[in-house]
């Protein structure tokens, strides 16, 4: 470790306004933007009731149990559904106009009509499944003549059964948290800008500056590690500032496991920097192309981790579970998410292990490419 290189590198990087902007100010600005955009949702109910229509035909009129269950689920402060009773044509129209997420048509059996597969649609579906299952049990039990059938019926329409899908912690479900967790993950991967610069400044075939370093009487990898340490320190500090800003200015919850949250951030920062370094070492294209790849892939990853459209994360984990596991932005997001929502660490450990493996791959890959000291061409 060379202090001369480290100290000068710190000086250099701290004055690199453009990279500081992308790695620090940009995420902070996005955080503020998110916060403003979600202010209303946040101050209202934690959960926005799902628009649901029921075709008001004779079958529904006759189904007392379903009526009760739906009424239960669509009244009160914690209501699950915003219920509309209407004709089938009208329901179809509401669905097309996206005023509702789905409607129920009761024939012999209740049928759910939805347009897409998202969290809201799934909640209606699981409500219905749960209702049907309960009714089946109720019928069975009723046939065995219980003492208090009314009590049984009461258990049919409990909204928190569907929203509070997480066992254990006292944490409150807050869908907005996910946006901020993806934001941290994105910011960690924007640390790739630092990693990219490190490789550019040590590979003589990438910059004349690096050529100067390469002809000096210094060990290349030692110089690289000293220089890289400065990047790691700066980026980790940036991420801590982001965490503190989110926690204490925007009042975003991270749960009680502070130590783990910081550890996750540190690993995220390392993952991001090594990712950028790896791209820079691997891609034999211009600086602009590399930056485009870094921003593009991070945005892509953030999108599929649910940053822009939250349903995406859910859809991905249902339909393309592999994508959820190989998307490092999602792994990092999910690590924060599981620290907050779960008491047990198993899901967290899975995420962190996968992310750790990827980081090792990025580091090893970078090492293999940059360890050479002579170049085929400059």
């Amino acid at each position, binding site marked *: 470790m060379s202090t001369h290189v480290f100290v*000068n590198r710190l000086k250099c990087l701290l*004055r690199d306004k453009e990279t500081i902007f992308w790695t620090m100010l940009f995420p902070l600005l996005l955080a503020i933007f998110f916060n403003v955009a979600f202010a209303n949702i946040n101050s209202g109910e934690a959960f926005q009731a799902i628009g649901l229509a029921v075709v008001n035909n004779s079958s529904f009129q006759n189904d007392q149990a379903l009526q009760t269950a739906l009424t239960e689920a669509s009244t009160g402060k914690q209501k699950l559904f915003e219920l509309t009773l209407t004709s089938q044509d009208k329901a179809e129209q509401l669905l097309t106009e996206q005023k509702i997420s789905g409607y129920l048509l009761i024939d012999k059996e209740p049928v759910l009509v939805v347009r897409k597969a998202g969290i809201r649609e799934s909640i209606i579906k699981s409500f219905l499944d749960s209702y049907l299952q309960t009714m089946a049990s109720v019928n069975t039990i009723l046939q065995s003549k219980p003492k208090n059938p009314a009590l049984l019926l009461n258990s049919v329409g409990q909204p928190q059964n569907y929203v509070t899908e997480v066992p254990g912690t006292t944490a409150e479900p807050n869908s907005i948290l996910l946006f901020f967790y993806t934001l941290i993950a994105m910011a960690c991967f924007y640390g790739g800008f630092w990693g990219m610069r490190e490789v550019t400044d040590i590979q003589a075939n990438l910059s004349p500056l690096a050529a100067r370093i390469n002809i000096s009487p210094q060990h290349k990898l030692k110089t690289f590690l000293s220089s890289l340490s400065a990047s790691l320190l700066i980026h980790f500090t940036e991420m801590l500032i982001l965490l503190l800003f989110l926690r204490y200015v925007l009042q975003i919850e991270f749960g009680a496991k502070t130590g783990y949250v910081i550890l996750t951030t540190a690993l995220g920062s390392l993952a991001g920097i090594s990712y950028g370094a790896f791209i820079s070492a691997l891609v034999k294209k211009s600086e602009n192309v590399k930056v485009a790849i870094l921003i593009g892939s991070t945005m892509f990853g953030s999108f599929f981790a649910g940053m822009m459209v939250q349903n995406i994360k859910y859809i991905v984990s249902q339909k393309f579970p592999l994508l959820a596991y190989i998307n490092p932005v999602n792994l990092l997001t999910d690590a924060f998410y599981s620290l907050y929502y779960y008491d047990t660490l198993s899901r967290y450990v899975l995420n962190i292990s996968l992310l750790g493996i990827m980081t090792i791959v990025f580091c090893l890959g970078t090492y293999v490419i940059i360890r050479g000291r002579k170049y085929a061409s400059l």
Partner: protein
Amino acid sequence: MIVSVKNLVKRYDDILALDHLSLTVNDGEIFGLLGPNGSGKTTAINCILSLLKYDKGEIEIFGQSMRPEAYDVKRNIGVVMQNVAVYNELTVQENIDYFCGLYVPDKRLRKELVTEAIDFVGLHEFSSYYPKKLSGGLLRRLNIACGIAHKPKLIILDEPTVAVDPQSRNKILEGILELNKKGATIIYTSHYMEEVEQICSRIMIIDKGRAIATGTKEELKAMITMGEKITVESQRITETQLNQLRRLPSIVSADYKNKLLIIKSSKGSNNLETVLEFFKTENIQFGKIYSELPTLNDVFLEITGKQLRD
């Protein structure tokens, strides 16, 4: 001997950039590597510095075989690359200190060296400037200071005057002579023959990766048949007269273009007299007339059949 290169061959895919290039640089010399664009000067320098892989050849510096890990050798080399390589986020002084620090760990000694280097390139009043604020010429000077602040025994400069204003250029050339006087051996590449003639004690002319001639400028000029170039301004010269001229003894060539007659004669005296005699007998009117000794360009032209610079 400071540098010895034997049979260096370097290929970039299908381009043969260096073709069995051999050279030696002796202690205290200013060794000039003169060649047109793309002749392989930078490639040769980068091979010597162990930056580039090469296909064949042996390179020794200070009597040791050169490798990337030859830190003792590298410690005594200073390089000024063709491309400016400085940190945009560090000031003039910080840049020099940083690069000097890669060679000289001792802070106190370094401080002196940095001040000396700044004075040497005349950047004193700009020492707290960031590179972006420097003009092209000043930036080149900073680039030089970064390469030589640690007082190396061997200094390699790869076209340090490209795109530099005449004032900075002179300052740079004077500086190189001064460094040499203080004991440094210098390798200087350029495609400006005037510069090379001005400062180099020995010159190698290269073309297409091959050494085509080596020696002092006098030795190089002695290698060619042309001894003198006579230029005559004249309104009219007929083709017959031109052919007659060419047939005169000691005249190597005669060309008439744009009202300028250029005659090249072989070595020996009385060449100008012969030409003037001819003009008198033919009754040719002429304006200015002047005679020049051959330049390195003429050397290059005669050996390769093309101009050093186009």
